[in-house]
């Protein structure tokens, strides 16, 4: 009898536990089917040719059709070496002290046109990206060539194995390979074809691209991950007008916002209108910064550059320009949004990051030492891109500079001319935005601070910094590398190489029934949509 009572008690307790804790788990079981309507802020600039652009407007709608060798786990918020999972590479192994990366590819993977995927496709893609002398194809624009300067050769010993031979150890090569910017192209498809169509191995196949209107994908029934994707389709709807985009989200005509587009204020208004909307603040991995042309006076003088850096009250800028929707940080995204960010104590000790009451007098003193006085004021032309987010920031900076005696006039440069102006150095000082693919020092420093890099708009070139960049890149001990990156961040701000002002936050909005669409600490890496499902 007591045994029976015990059994009944066990059943009752079990049921109670299932009711208490089990129900949410049951409701979180992914459901298959349905289509997501997703916001696209402009038509695809270069179709699906991710390798030929550096814009989220291409990466976001093209990612579902393609695959990488490896990818940041879409279900984890944080991107790091520990959250990298295999895609086309089933597993990988570092050999010879991180000098050789051996990737073992999945078998039975097919391109959307039915051709088999092999190591030949991988070698083709990465030889093309690094512009190897014997590369079988060439990209007409290759913005991330610098990511692969450390790759010496790529070997494909058999159809399912690829070896990246490196010139020196570089553990974080995997970080670049895991970025949304690093899909594998098909060797049998000319790279130019990706501008108009998408032959990938990805979870979704291109159904239709109606120019200026929408891009529609359908589920890839032959996808190599069984049971994925959950969704039957995706529709990226081009909505150029910001007000219409907000109205579309509010009315439910679209289910997901465009990454990097929703400000704090807009998110608050949307949440007020539709309380059930899911809003997730996260770092875009995009920063506001000041570029100063070091090839020309007056900014070839480190004191003048440092004065500019000290003049700008970064915290006030975050409030005034971003209404609190940004965070102050140095050249790597600050914690908790970024992995490499400096501690508050270290950050506040950097020039320009202290109290404005202390910083501005020191800025004036530096200017005086450089020969700038009220009798001999410094007049400069500050350029920026003719887009509101740039102009707002530039206007704030001009006001700050005025307070230390620098008279800056604003010159807006049309988008068509902006990068040409910056790359050629046809400017004195500029207010700029920089987006970084993965949250990794290699992806940032080689591209934006290395001597001779086309995106090093300030023409900053320092032998010691180059050594520090190389050193941290090949450091195998994570703790030591973290310390080296911290020292590098300090050095760059001390030199006012490209003073960082803030790191922008996005308030990613989607309907509550959209599950598993988790923003990472970079807008460029979470658009695969393989794990996303509708709880409806």
């Amino acid at each position, binding site marked *: 009898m007591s045994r029976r009572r015990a059994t009944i008690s066990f059943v009752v307790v079990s049921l109670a536990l299932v009711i208490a804790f089990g129900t949410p788990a049951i409701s979180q079981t992914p459901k298959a089917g349905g289509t997501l309507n997703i916001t696209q802020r402009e038509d695809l600039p270069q179709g699906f040719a991710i390798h030929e652009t550096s814009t989220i407007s291409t990466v976001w709608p093209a990612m579902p059709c393609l695959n990488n060798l490896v990818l940041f786990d879409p279900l984890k918020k944080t991107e790091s070496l520990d959250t990298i999972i295999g895609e086309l590479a089933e597993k990988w192994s570092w050999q010879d002290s991180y000098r050789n990366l051996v990737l073992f590819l999945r078998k039975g993977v097919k391109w959307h046109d039915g051709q088999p995927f092999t190591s030949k496709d991988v070698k083709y893609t990465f030889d093309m990206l690094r512009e190897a002398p014997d590369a079988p194809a060439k990209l*007409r*624009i290759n913005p991330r060539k610098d990511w692969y300067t450390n790759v010496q050769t790529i070997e494909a010993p058999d159809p399912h194995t690829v070896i990246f031979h490196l010139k020196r150890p570089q553990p974080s090569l995997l970080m670049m390979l895991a970025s949304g910017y690093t899909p594998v192209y098909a060797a049998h498809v000319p790279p130019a074809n990706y501008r108009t169509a998408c032959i990938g191995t990805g979870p979704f196949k291109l159904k239709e691209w109606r*120019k200026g209107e929408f891009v529609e994908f359908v589920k890839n029934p032959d996808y190599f991950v069984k049971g994925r994707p959950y969704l039957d389709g995706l529709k990226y*709807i081009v*909505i150029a007008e910001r007000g219409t985009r907000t109205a579309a989200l509010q009315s439910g005509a*679209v289910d997901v916002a465009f990454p990097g587009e929703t400000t704090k204020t807009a998110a608050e208004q949307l949440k007020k209108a539709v309380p059930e909307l899911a809003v997730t603040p996260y770092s875009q991995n995009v920063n506001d910064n000041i570029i100063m042309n070091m090839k020309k006076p007056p900014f070839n003088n480190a004191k003048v550059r440092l004065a500019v850096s000290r003049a700008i009250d970064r915290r006030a800028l975050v409030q005034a320009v971003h209404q609190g929707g940004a965070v102050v940080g140095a050249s790597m995204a600050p914690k908790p949004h970024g992995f490499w960010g400096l501690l508050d104590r270290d950050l506040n000790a950097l020039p320009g990051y202290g109290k404005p009451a202390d910083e501005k007098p020191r800025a004036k003193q530096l200017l005086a030492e450089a020969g700038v006085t009220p009798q001999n004021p410094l007049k400069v032309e500050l350029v920026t891109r003719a887009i509101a987010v740039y102009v707002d920031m530039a206007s704030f900076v001009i006001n700050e500079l005025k307070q230390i005696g620098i008279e800056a006039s604003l010159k807006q440069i049309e988008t068509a001319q902006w990068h040409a102006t910056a790359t050629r150095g046809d400017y004195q000082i500029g207010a700029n935005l920089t987006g970084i693919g993965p949250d990794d020092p290699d992806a940032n420093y080689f591209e934006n601070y290395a001597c001779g890099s086309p995106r090093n708009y300030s023409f900053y070139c320092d032998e010691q910094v180059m050594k520090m960049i190389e050193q941290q890149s090949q450091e195998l001990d994570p703790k030591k590398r973290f310390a080296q990156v911290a020292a590098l961040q300090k050095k760059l701000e001390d030199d006012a190489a490209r003073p960082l002002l803030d790191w922008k936050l996005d308030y990613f909005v989607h309907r509550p029934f959209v599950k598993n669409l988790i923003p990472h600490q970079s807008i460029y890496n979470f658009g695969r949509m393989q794990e996303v499902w509708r709880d409806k």
Partner: protein
Amino acid sequence: MKSYVAQRLGIAILTLVGMSIVIFTLLRLAPGDIVDILFSTAGYVNESEKQAILKELGMDRPYWIQYLDWMRQILTGDLGKSYRYDVPAWEVIRPLVPVTIELAVLSIIVAVVLGVPTGVISAVRQDTTLDYVLRVLSLAGLSMPSFWLGMVIILGMVSWLGWIPPLTYVKPTENFRAHAIQFALPALAVGYRSSALIMRITRSSLLEVMREDYIRTAWAKGQAERVVIWHHALKNAILPVVTVIGIEFAFLIGGLVVTETVFNLPGVARFLVQAILWRDYPIVQNLVMFIAIVVILSNLFVDMLYGVLDPRVRYGG
């Protein structure tokens, strides 16, 4: 009549040639080109790569050769290739044309249906309360930009109904109801503004005609008000109204940029702005030529209509 039409068509061809030279030149005077934009999306510029792309697109050739090439393409019905999309320009332009024409025609219908009767009522009931109300409404229409009205309509729909019109183009053959709704709201927004202009022109023109001797004679003969107004007065007052309608229609073909953007309609004007920003010369040049042709043809049509409406108008040498 035939010689008049032939003469007008001859002038039209000359106008189009002049137009082509103007648009070709202006586009090349604007700073930057497609290659700058392409590099802009990549975040850097490389001069040698830039030259290679210019060559690939044929933009390294002398301007006059590029111009003649474009003229040859038009004459052979081949509009070239879109620089941005890397597909034939005609493939890009073709779906835009019906959208804009439909929106312009519907807007004009709304404008005429609203504008002409209210203009007549306003003239006939001059200086009454009704006249003042209608004049205020028309003034509001003129003062209110249609894109603003469009955005207010959309926000109102979202706030009160939790609904907005379809965001992608719905073909009438797919879903006629959705198609009708998609076009009705922007047509109302644009048509209201145009109706205000038509109403004011109708009113002033009718007031002028109503003071003519033959109208007084008609009244004296004891003819009914309906006959005097609609048969005698309006027929003579309508010529300037027709002129305005023609001008408005021509304007709408290229002037619906913001309305198409706000309502997310894939029309000519919205696409033209994007093509200009991208310096997509083949698309811009051919779209501008299309707009020019519509303007010329609508003007010709209005001139032809004069002869039908007013027997005193005669054409020819």
